[in-house]
């Protein structure tokens, strides 16, 4: 074959998911084989292989793109020992290994998506600032700092209609404007202000911010730089969960590179603006995602929220005006400046502009990170992008907004996803977690899970939150144990309303939402637990019993071997028996039996 300088590029997905699946080993295998025997030299090609961040479809990792002269082939589930064949047949031989290519569903997964924030994630090497710059990166900051006034920038951000992606949905431009207008406190006051990027991402089921930082950290820094100029801030902080090791590492690399290019530090781009960014690792408290608690944490205090007002834009970090924005909010900014407010406002609905990144997980076939225009229907997300429910089970509900959110049941699946609509249905857009539940999930159990979470994470400052979430949890717990009382439903509702109205911060104010939402749509499940002592989803351990049906049991012994409690006995090839008195209801035997002899009732 002729090789007249064609261009080959190999991209290996190395977000957290990609690395867990062996991304580093796959990349090493490519590098090794391409270097070996001078393949690169022999083919006289402009050949590069590098890591990229998450491209969303983590459940198919390791994903590898081989791009030869703009023709892209994507492989899924690649292991290091598969690399040799790809190099041999595809890169040298010119014909892709078709049986390892992604299937139809990879394309349906992407077709309905609109990528703005994620447009560079999964395409560029996140540890290489030039990769970002080559695609136009930092062009927005340059344009903003050198050709626009802060007021003009604020105007564009306002006009774009972007609202905070951290949960509350507050208009970003308005926030910046208020911070900009804060006057010096005294005549000598240097009027210091701060920008804080909230990367605490505490919702247990969310990983949007992590993926954005791992995949394109420079977009976040660029957004912060533009914000700093617009607001008049000299210092920025990124408050990030300590658990996000890879994201922290990539942020630090990105900050170092940006400083080297004079995109951070003193006299940025020769404009006279001083702005630098520090990374602060959180210490494992969900409540620190709340802005005033986050500030307390950076100040070295216990992370407890305080009453607002004053809002952080007036009095935030060290008592100075402070803009706190979510990772995704900030990562949108460079694209808004680059492509204009009108373009951004053309995406989405009347009052919810742009796109939103969601972490689509749970019992859906295609799990991963998705970016969709606001206003898309839940059905499109779950059944088109998500490919429907795993294992042919029946869809039950989708939980959005984590511990502050609620669920959308099947009959409302055509609901459009935007801030107003989801709130109306008793759920929220929240930070972007979307957990799909199927017929095997018990909704009382789900509510109990979240209340256990919030009662553990309540900072304890206010009694309604501290005690109220605990009481709610206890009631839910007894219902799932089959000890619920007739009066419990009314009690849950009353207590929920009290906690919502009397708590100081968003954690307490929203903690009862999972209860109220499941009560609204799945009251019958609560009633079955209380009145019939049955869990319709057969998920609550106290209400189920495992048995072996003699007539189906082949005596293979598989269940006996997995049973951790020693509850199963029997001789080979004769029906086994299960002693319900010592069974701990782990379900292992149920999962392992190939003859469906184990039943769960």
């Amino acid at each position, binding site marked *: 074959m002729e090789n007249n300088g064609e261009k080959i590029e190999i991209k290996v997905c190395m977000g957290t*998911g990609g690395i*867990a*699946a062996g991304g580093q080993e796959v990349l090493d295998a490519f590098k090794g084989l391409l270097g070996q025997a001078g393949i690169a030299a022999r083919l006289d090609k402009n050949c590069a292989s590098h890591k990229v961040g998450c491209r969303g479809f983590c459940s198919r990792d390791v994903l590898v793109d081989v791009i030869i002269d703009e023709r892209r082939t994507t492989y899924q589930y690649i292991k290091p020992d598969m690399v040799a064949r790809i190099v041999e047949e595809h890169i040298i031989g010119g014909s892709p290994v078709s049986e390892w290519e992604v299937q139809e569903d990879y394309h349906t997964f992407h077709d309905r998506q609109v990528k703005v924030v994620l447009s560079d994630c999964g395409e560029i090497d996140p540890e290489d600032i030039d990769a970002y710059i080559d695609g136009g990166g930092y062009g927005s900051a340059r344009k903003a700092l050198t050709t626009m006034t802060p007021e003009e920038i604020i105007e564009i951000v306002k006009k774009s209609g972007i609202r905070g992606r951290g949960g509350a949905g507050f208009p970003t431009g308005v926030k910046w404007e208020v911070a900009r207008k804060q006057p010096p406190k005294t005549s000598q006051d240097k009027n210091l202000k701060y920008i804080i990027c909230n990367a605490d991402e505490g919702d247990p089921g969310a990983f949007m911010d992590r993926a954005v930082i791992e995949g394109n950290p420079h977009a976040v820094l660029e957004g912060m730089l533009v914000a700093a100029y617009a607001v008049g801030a000299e210092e920025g902080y990124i408050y990030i969960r300590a658990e996000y090791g890879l994201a922290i590492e990539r942020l630090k690399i990105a900050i170092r590179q940006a400083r080297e290019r004079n995109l951070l530090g003193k006299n940025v781009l020769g404009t006279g603006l001083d702005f630098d960014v520090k990374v602060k690792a959180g*210490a494992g408290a969900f409540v620190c995602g709340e802005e005033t608690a986050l500030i307390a944490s*950076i100040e*070295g205090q*216990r992370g407890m929220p305080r009453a607002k007002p004053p809002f952080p834009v007036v009095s935030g970090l060290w008592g100075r005006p402070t803009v706190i924005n979510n990772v995704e909010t900030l990562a949108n900014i460079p694209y808004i400046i680059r492509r204009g407010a009108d373009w951004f406002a053309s995406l989405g609905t009347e009052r919810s502009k742009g796109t939103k990144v969601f972490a689509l997980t749970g019992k859906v076939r295609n799990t991963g990170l998705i970016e969709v225009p606001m206003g898309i229907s839940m059905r499109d997300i779950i059944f088109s992008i998500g490919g429907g429910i795993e294992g042919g089970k029946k869809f039950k509900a989708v939980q959005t907004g*984590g511990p502050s959110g609620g669920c959308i049941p099947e009959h409302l699946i055509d609901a459009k996803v935007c801030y107003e609509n989801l709130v109306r249905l008793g759920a929220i857009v929240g930070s972007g977690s979307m957990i799909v539940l199927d017929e095997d999930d018990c909704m009382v159990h*789900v509510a109990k899970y979240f209340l256990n979470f919030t009662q553990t994470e309540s900072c304890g400052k206010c009694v309604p939150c501290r005690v109220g979430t605990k009481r709610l949890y206890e009631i839910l717990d007894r219902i799932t144990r089959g000890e619920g009382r007739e009066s419990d439903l009314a009690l849950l509702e009353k207590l929920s309303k009290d906690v919502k109205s009397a708590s100081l911060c968003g954690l307490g104010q929203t903690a009862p939402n999972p209860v109220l939402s499941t009560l609204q749509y799945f009251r019958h499940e609560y009633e079955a637990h209380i009145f019939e002592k049955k869990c319709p989803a057969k998920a609550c351990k106290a209400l189920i019993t495992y048995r072996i049906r003699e007539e189906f049991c082949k005596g293979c012994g598989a269940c006996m071997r997995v049973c951790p409690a020693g509850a199963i006995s029997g001789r080979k090839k004769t029906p086994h028996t299960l002693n319900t008195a010592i069974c701990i209801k*782990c379900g292992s035997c149920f999962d392992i039996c190939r003859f469906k002899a184990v039943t769960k009732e």
Partner: protein
Amino acid sequence: MQETCKTLKAADLEKLEEICARRGADQGAVIPILQDIQEVFGYLSEDAVNFAADRLEMPRSHFYGVATFYAQFHLRPRGRNVVTACTGTTCHVKGSENLISILGRELGIPEGQDTSPDMNYTLEKINCVGACSIAPVIIINNGVHSKMNADKITKEVIKLKGADDGKQRGKD
């Protein structure tokens, strides 16, 4: 300050000095200093915390207040191997509860505690690792294991125990 110095080894003192010097003495340094101490020593010993508080001339109670507020900090020593189970929502609906009870049993961790009596293993829970699309997730000494089930986790524990025994023998 003198009393704490007596119980700390010279080498440890040096490390603590280094941490405090690097992090500075302002209020905002408290959490980073505690994080560094934990990183270096594996947990926050009373002596080390007292040393840092005295060094920054802040009340010891403030340091303890902060250390007990955040879930990341451990005031007791931990096992040589740390297994972390994700209890985030997605892992939960994908069966993490069951994995945790298997881990507790296989690693010999007593009910209501997190570390085995022989200090070999600590089992920790964490609210979402941020890898929910490959749930359920278990982290064994920093290695992320995805899409776990009862069978896979049991095999991983056997591997871990084998490796750990090897390490122990190597030491003798």
